[in-house]
């Protein structure tokens, strides 16, 4: 399949990588939500994720590849899309026929990407440094404390919350759209759309809740 040349193949690749990230998001959320319910569970889950061979050396690289792929492909598509209309309209009323979220995936995507930078800076790099560069003794109970500490800053908390709103917009369109891209549009699509939109609100809202909870429970 000519992944790099055909428009449809590119869209399908975009959809598949997106769906993969959607699944990852659910997993990420499930672990995070335990921080609100029971810090011990959170610690043990985090420790498992941080030290399991499969998670660290197989799932994690795939995930990072997925993120990069989704981003690069999104950019490639965007460049192509912009070149398809070289002289723009003086008057263009996109809001009459489509949602803001669907027209601005590149913006919501870019914000999410910036957020990922921050997120990596906050958690991933320190974690890698902690584990593989500086050799600290293993401490399976440190995760919750580190987490709470990060959400002390109101600015960081606010940035996280804003990013989650854009994540919601990105998912609102992207999740259901991925099924259309893969050719799945039938009598079940309406129900599926309902589910994807629920998901698009619920998961980011959950993340917002966790961030605020941690911020206000210092």
């Amino acid at each position, binding site marked *: 399949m000519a992944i790099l040349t055909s428009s449809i193949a590119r869209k399908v690749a975009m959809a598949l990588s997106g769906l993969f990230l959607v699944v990852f998001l659910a997993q990420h959320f499930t672990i995070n939500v335990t921080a609100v319910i029971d810090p011990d569970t959170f610690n043990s889950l985090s420790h498992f994720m941080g030290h399991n061979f499969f998670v660290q050396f197989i799932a994690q690289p795939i995930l990072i590849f997925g993120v990069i792929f989704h981003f690069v492909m999104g950019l490639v598509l965007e460049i192509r899309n912009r*070149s398809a209309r070289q002289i723009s309209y003086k008057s263009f009323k996109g809001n009459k026929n489509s949602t803001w979220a669907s027209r601005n995936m590149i913006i919501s995507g870019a914000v999410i990407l910036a957020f990922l930078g921050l997120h990596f800076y906050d958690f991933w790099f320190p974690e890698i440094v902690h584990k593989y560069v500086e050799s600290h003794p293993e401490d399976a109970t440190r995760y919750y404390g580190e987490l709470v500490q990060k959400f002390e800053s109101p600015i960081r908390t606010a940035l996280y919350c804003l990013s989650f709103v854009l994540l919601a917009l990105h998912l609102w369109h992207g999740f259901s759209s991925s099924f259309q891209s893969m*050719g799945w549009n039938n009598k079940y699509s309406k129900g599926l759309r309902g589910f994807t939109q629920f998901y698009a609100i619920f998961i980011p809202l959950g993340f917002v809740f966790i961030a605020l909870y941690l911020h206000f429970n210092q």
Partner: protein
Amino acid sequence: MKLTLKIWRQKNANTKGELKTYPIDGIEGDMSFLEMLDVLNEELINKGDEPVVFDHDCREGICGSCSLQINGEPHGPDRLVTTCQLHMRMFNDGDTIVIEPFRAKAFPVIKDLVVDRTSFERIQQAGGYISVNTSGNTIDANAIPVNKQDADDSFNAATCIGCGACVAACKNASAMLFTSAKVSQFALLPQGKVEATERVLNMVAQMDKEGFGNCTNTGACEIECPKGISLENIARMNREYLNASIKG
């Protein structure tokens, strides 16, 4: 009705164009949008100016000649109509109306509001047919029963008039709705299944070659389509394309 028209004027493909303002008076609600332009042109001719050139022919919403981006929407603010069926009763006295050509790299402007849509023709030539000879020596029309729903869906896809509103409305200038309607029309019928694989691969390849954008599933095309061609066709084409890619 008194209106202010801002119309894209461009001498030919090689010159730069611009929006020019024309006041117009005496417009009635019963006039179609194109009849309003007729009135303007008559005035321009009588004044010794060059009339505005725009594509139009049947003026009953079926030939697909008329185009025009009117106040930021292809075929104007009304739904399920072409510009020739858009009536002035949709506007109010004192309105300003911006009229531009359909914009896409694959639809270069020829003059004023006329664009070149032959990219659509080339997509159809790439496979939009069933390879049977027109000799008439074929099987009886009723020899293959066709499921009514399939026949109706095929018909609905085939009502596409090839006007290009889908491309004009799409923020990416994508031709997926058009191409998918042409693919679906044949894919849904038993007669069309024989060549389905090659057809979808060739037509999509040609569509890409013409420089149209990608589909982002905003759904703008479906809403602006004067014939109400459904997004289901795009999903069907994606499906057909995946199947064909795996097979071929």
